[in-house]
């Protein structure tokens, strides 16, 4: 039987097992929406308030589930509004399929109403994109889109569908398998390289494991934990890798990088072997690249060959899926009689424990002074027993969330790491809450970030998403202000937001519960009260210390061992 393009579109979603999509209708996608309406019991569509929110929500869904997130937006402004989310997904390797409407084929290139060349616009920030030019190619294209998005190094794939394709008809056939001669990611690591890596690991005196988002994406947290424990090496996680190893474990030395711990950064600096797994030597991790890991040999495991030796020359590159390679490493380790040098490791741990004594994340909450943001995050971790999904926006609060919420599981820490997109948190939390309706999902945010996608409070009401919004309100764009304090002689150019709204009233206007918390003594009670409101979104506006800084810090241009502690 012949189906219309719109029918094929929905059939493909069903074939891919897509349960939830996030989107916003418009002229070019009306037939698609009409079909979604007819099949609303099959595919659940969440109506956001702005297309950026749709893509971030799909990202949140994907980051929490490791399944591709799906967004649907219209042509022109609908598509351009989605670009920030697409770029965000590209930087953080989030599997995403974004469908955009396009003007009918005969109008393409005509400057038609709501026409943009979205395939051209997004080309540099997608893993791949397609313009569908024939309805007969629609099903195969969608199959390819899901395949490309979710295999290899995951990423966003955009499918642009002209309106007339959605009404054109053809026989529907969904390919069960797809092979592409131009795309065959290497998933199995080279055995010889794994053996070379093991040689170095067994010789090392001062080794450190440095693992990133790739561990979470590959679902390798369990295997990584096994390997780390068998080796007895210290392990640090990148911002994206948090949760890939249980933070409360004694071998965990904290996050590394610009706002990483003193012990993690020093361990990296002094190490004689760095084992990088699913991490990409981002500039926020390395600091000054000239001063990075001066004494270390480097092993780098990554599924993306282009990530290897991009920023830092690597001694043993291993291209492959992180999980496969870790399993191979474990096998190789178990097949050998040698074990890591216990005496050397004991000395190394002694040194690390010295660095730990700096207690670099200590802060003092004076119960009679204003609330410290760190205190709120730490209390939230306590009351949720470290089990909540934490979505964060971008800025100081993001760093505090990363430092003080001690993740014990992967996929629970959902933030915008690479692109650093303010406004990410709330819509991402919607995506997570849709995936896990029964779980506690929090959005840790700031008074600046929350306003970038605050309209999504409407979506949360419509779909009864009981997100806990933890606003660490300091009346500043805090991270900008911090840099201006340190590096621009306190000239606070545009980092102060006059005329902040009353967030409590705003939350109430959207039909939610709003709270303002001003005293440290009220923090825990408020968090518990919010947590108890299982079926309501609670917006907690914590009025926090205004000029609080994120420490420790590697200033721009410094080496990893040159940290400002307080």
């Amino acid at each position, binding site marked *: 039987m012949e189906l219309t393009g719109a029918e094929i579109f929905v059939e493909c979603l069903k074939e891919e097992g897509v349960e939830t999509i996030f989107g916003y209708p418009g002229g070019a996608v009306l037939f698609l929406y009409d079909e979604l309406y007819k099949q609303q019991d099959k595919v659940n569509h969440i109506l956001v308030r702005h297309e950026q929110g749709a893509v971030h929500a799909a990202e949140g869904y994907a980051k929490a589930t490791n399944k591709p997130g799906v967004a649907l937006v219209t042509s022109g402004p609908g598509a351009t509004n989605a670009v920030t989310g697409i770029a965000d997904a590209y930087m953080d390797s989030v599997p995403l399929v974004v469908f955009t409407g396009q003007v009918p084929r005969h109008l393409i290139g005509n400057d038609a109403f709501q026409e943009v060349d979205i395939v051209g616009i997004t080309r540099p920030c997608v*893993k791949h994109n397609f313009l569908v030019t024939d309805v007969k190619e629609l099903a195969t294209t969608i199959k390819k889109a899901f395949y490309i998005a979710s295999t290899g190094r995951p990423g966003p794939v955009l499918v642009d569908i002209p309106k007339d394709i959605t009404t054109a008809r053809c026989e529907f056939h969904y390919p069960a398998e797809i092979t592409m001669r131009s795309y065959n990611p290497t998933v199995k690591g080279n055995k010889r390289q794994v053996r070379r890596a093991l040689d170095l690991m067994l010789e090392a005196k001062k080794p450190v494991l440095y693992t990133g988002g790739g561990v979470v994406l590959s679902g390798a947290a369990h295997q990584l934990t096994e390997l780390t424990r068998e080796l007895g090496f210290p392990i640090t996680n990148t911002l994206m890798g948090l949760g890939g190893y249980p933070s409360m474990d004694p071998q965990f030395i904290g996050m590394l990088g610009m706002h990483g711990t003193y012990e993690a950064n020093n361990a990296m600096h002094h190490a004689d072997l760095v084992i990088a797994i699913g991490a990409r030597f981002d500039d926020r991790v390395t600091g000054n690249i000239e001063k990075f890991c001066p004494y270390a040999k480097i092993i780098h495991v990554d599924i993306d060959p282009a990530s290897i030796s991009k920023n830092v020359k690597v001694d043993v590159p291993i291209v492959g899926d992180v999980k496969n390679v870790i399993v191979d490493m474990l096998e190789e380790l178990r097949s050998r009689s040698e074990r890591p040098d216990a005496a050397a490791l004991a000395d190394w741990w002694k040194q690390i424990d010295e660095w730990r004594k700096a207690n670099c994340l200590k802060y003092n909450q004076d119960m009679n002074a204003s609330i410290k943001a760190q205190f709120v995050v730490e209390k939230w971790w306590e009351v949720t027993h470290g089990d909540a999904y934490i979505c964060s926006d971008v800025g100081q609060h993001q760093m505090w969330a990363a430092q003080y919420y001690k993740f014990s599981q992967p996929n629970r820490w959902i933030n915008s790491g690479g692109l650093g997109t303010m406004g990410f948190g709330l819509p991402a939390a919607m995506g997570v809450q849709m995936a896990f309706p029964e779980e506690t999902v929090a959005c840790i945010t700031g008074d600046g970030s929350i306003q970038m996608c605050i309209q999504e409070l409407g979506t949360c009401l419509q779909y009864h998403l009981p997100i806990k919004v933890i606003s660490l309100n300091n009346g500043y764009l805090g991270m900008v202000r911090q840099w201006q304090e340190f590096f621009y002689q306190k000239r606070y150019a545009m980092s102060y937001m006059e005329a902040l709204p009353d967030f409590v009233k705003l939350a109430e206007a959207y039909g939610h519960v709003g709270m303002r918390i001003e005293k440290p003594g009220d923090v825990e009670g408020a968090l518990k009260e919010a947590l108890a409101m299982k079926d309501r979104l609670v917006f907690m506006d914590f009025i926090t210390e205004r000029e609080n800084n994120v420490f420790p810090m590697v200033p721009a241009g410094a080496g990893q061992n040159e940290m400002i502690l307080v």
Partner: protein
Amino acid sequence: MRHVISILMENEAGALSRVAGLFSARGYNIESLTVAPTEDATLSRMTLVTRGSDEIVEQIIKQLHKLIDVVKVMDLSQFPHIEREMMFIKIAVDKNTACEAVKRLSDIFRGNIIDVTDKMYTIELTGDRQKLDAFVNAVRDFRILEVVRSGSMGIARGEASLHV
């Protein structure tokens, strides 16, 4: 170092701009670029000439591989290879002496005169880059009206080849 990179890619709309966009987005330079379909019309073959340190060229090749439309990439500079470029050059021959002189130079360089009017010759010339440069220098005393160069094409010598 100058590198000649051969790329076999899907003959899809937008494939060329993915390659060109990659170079501009990552700040790599393109000295020349030629592209056309192969004997298999679903594939295009591109020759791209770039300059960069070994690290940069290694990164360029990895980034090219990463493009979904790219099937195979080969750095011809790593192999014995042949490089050719084609040029059309239009030269004014309005002075009496010019006709003979230009024709002689064209013969020396094994060029073909492919169009003639009473005022100008159009010469077709194939060779490596240096030969074409040398010819342009040789005819500088005449009035050059137009130069069209194809950019380099390359192919490996012997067994090494780039195919699916």
